[in-house]
């Protein structure tokens, strides 16, 4: 068959399929509605996860991870007992970067605070108040007050019932193991999405902490300003790239995404079941029509193509309706975000008060391709019976 003839043939089949779909009435509406629901829910939920990952990643990079970190070889953030020995001289190689503001040393020590007469363990983090590597308001630590200036996060303030301007007793051990204590004053309460640097953390000026702990010129971690994997290893220090530091959060989001996949599969299955049912019923109900079309000169392949195309058209119409209904909704969600309940904070994921979904081209195109592929397959499978259909029986409304 010539290309032109094939093209004309396809147009005839498309015309017939469109006519049948148009006349499908309630059957068409229900199938399209089921598919629209599936498309919007899949894109909607995936967009939420993408948004969650994007927001978390951005917050962690800005407030905690920056471009990667050198960790003292003993430092293990998941083992508080390792903190005591996690300090060392800032490597010579990095001093220049620190001086130029491209890297920032942080000294982390274990301490105890006594807010409102209670005792609470805390991590005391010393950082240069003038640093620009992290997007934390550390400049608030620049104060003439003789008390130790302390910056805490909103979660810490809420849990410890601490307010700006209040003071609290801080106790720590210096490098020799001697206990010491001082009065600290809350100079600012920062709002950060990253719980790991908020809850149980006191931010103080680096030089003061080095002095308090008798660890001059030492640090626990050195945060690098720019993202690179090519840092020269320094003895006693291990470089953790941004990718490595973000791997936990990516894993959490991936796990949540996988669990949500089950929901998508159920949704997808329901949508496809609707199409499949429609096709099977159509083949049964329209067997006389199939026989007639064959008698009128259609080949079986054309009839199969007609029925498959009808199924696919449900998908195409559903996509069009999804664009019409979904675009404004998704646009609204992208610009306004979704308010998150406070309990989300306890999940340990760095998320703000609002979650802004991200609907990428890849997500939309991927979903469209997925839906159309599945719809095509599901539409085609039942029509294979046409190939075995005896037209003389079908004309009489019988299926053999």
């Amino acid at each position: 068959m010539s290309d032109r003839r094939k093209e004309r043939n396809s147009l005839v089949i498309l015309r017939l399929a469109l006519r049948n779909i148009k006349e499908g009435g309630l059957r068409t509406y229900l199938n399209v509605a089921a598919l629209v629901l599936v498309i919007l829910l899949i894109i909607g939920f995936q967009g939420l996860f993408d948004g969650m990952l994007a927001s978390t990643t951005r917050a962690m990079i800005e407030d905690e991870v920056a471009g990667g970190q050198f960790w003292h070889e003993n430092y293990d953030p998941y083992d508080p007992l390792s903190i005591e020995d996690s300090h060392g001289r800032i490597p010579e190689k990095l001093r220049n970067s620190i001086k130029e503001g491209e890297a920032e040393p942080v000294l982390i020590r274990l301490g105890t605070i006594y807010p409102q007469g209670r005792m609470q363990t805390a991590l005391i983090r010393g950082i240069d108040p003038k640093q620009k590597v992290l997007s934390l308001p550390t400049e608030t630590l620049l104060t003439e007050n003789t008390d130790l200036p302390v910056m805490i996060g909103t979660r810490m303030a809420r849990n410890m019932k601490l307010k700006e301007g209040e003071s609290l007793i801080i106790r720590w051990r210096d490098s020799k193991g001697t206990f010491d204590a001082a009065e600290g004053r809350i100079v600012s309460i920062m709002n950060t999405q990253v719980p790991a640097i908020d809850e149980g953390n006191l931010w103080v000026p680096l030089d003061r902490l080095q002095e308090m702990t008798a660890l001059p010129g030492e640090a626990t971690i050195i945060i690098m300003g720019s993202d690179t994997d090519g840092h020269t290893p320094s003895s006693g220090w291990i470089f953790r790239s941004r990718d490595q530091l973000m791997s936990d959060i990516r894993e959490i989001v991936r796990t949540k995404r996988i669990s949500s996949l089950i929901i998508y599969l159920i949704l997808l299955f329901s949508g496809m079941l609707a199409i499949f049912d429609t096709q099977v019923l159509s083949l049964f109900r329209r067997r006389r029509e199939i026989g007639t079309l064959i008698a009128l000169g259609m080949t079986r392949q054309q009839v199969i193509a007609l029925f498959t195309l009808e199924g696919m058209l449900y998908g195409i119409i559903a996509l069009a309706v999804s664009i019409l209904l979904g675009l404004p909704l998704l646009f609204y969600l992208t610009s306004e975000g979704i308010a998150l309940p406070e309990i989300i904070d306890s999940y340990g994921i760095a998320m703000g008060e609002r979650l802004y979904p991200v609907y990428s081209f890849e997500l939309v195109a991927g979903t469209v391709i997925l839906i159309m592929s599945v719809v095509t397959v599901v539409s085609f499978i039942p029509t294979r019976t046409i190939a075995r259909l005896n037209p003389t029986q079908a004309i009489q409304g019988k299926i053999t």
Partner: protein
Amino acid sequence: MSIVSVKGLVKKYPNGTNWFTALDNVNLEFMKGEFSGVIGPSGSGKTTLLNMIGALDSPTEGYSVIAGKDTRNMNSRESARLRNHHIGFIFQTYNLLSFYSVYENVELPLLLLELPGQERRKKVLDALEWLGIEDKVNSRPAQLSGGEKQRVAVARAVVKRPDLVLADEPTANLDSENSFNILEMMVKLNRELETTFIFATHDEKVMKYLRRKIHLMDGRVIKDERSTEGEKQFGHSQARP
């Protein structure tokens, strides 16, 4: 000129462990412009023979040549093309597509022939006019009477001016009045367009019109009768009941 030639046609269907012979060594020849019928009781093989001639079914043995085309080695695409270009079907139950209007039903064979829109429109309207149903152009089959439905079916069968029209019990579901009208129209079409008509029927009303009656019994041709009676009748159309 021969339009249909059937040679040694045998059709057997599996029937449990045995075979049921629906057609047994049928040899027939139909000439262009014939108005003939295959008659016989139910189960005699009339519809099977029409299906074979219409390339809707393949024989167990033998072959047929339709409009000069040997159907022996035809694949499904070629037989579809043969039906599309040369054969029109009329069914007992009309087999109109319920989704489509009268116009769309009649237009369907022309769409499959990929005729241009203007030509299709003209042919459809002409066919509807011949059949006297031009006022039903936008009606759906459900809105038509049995007689009107069969007229639409006839229009659909003849709209592409086929060489051959196969009509399987076309009047079985019609009353006498409608049967008469339909048959008169078929006679007129046969005369004006020289379309060959082959009926499968056991309806006495149809038989009166036939110029040739092929009697089938248990799949065999028992009599091939050419009468002048039918010819006379359609010459002055006085078969009204």
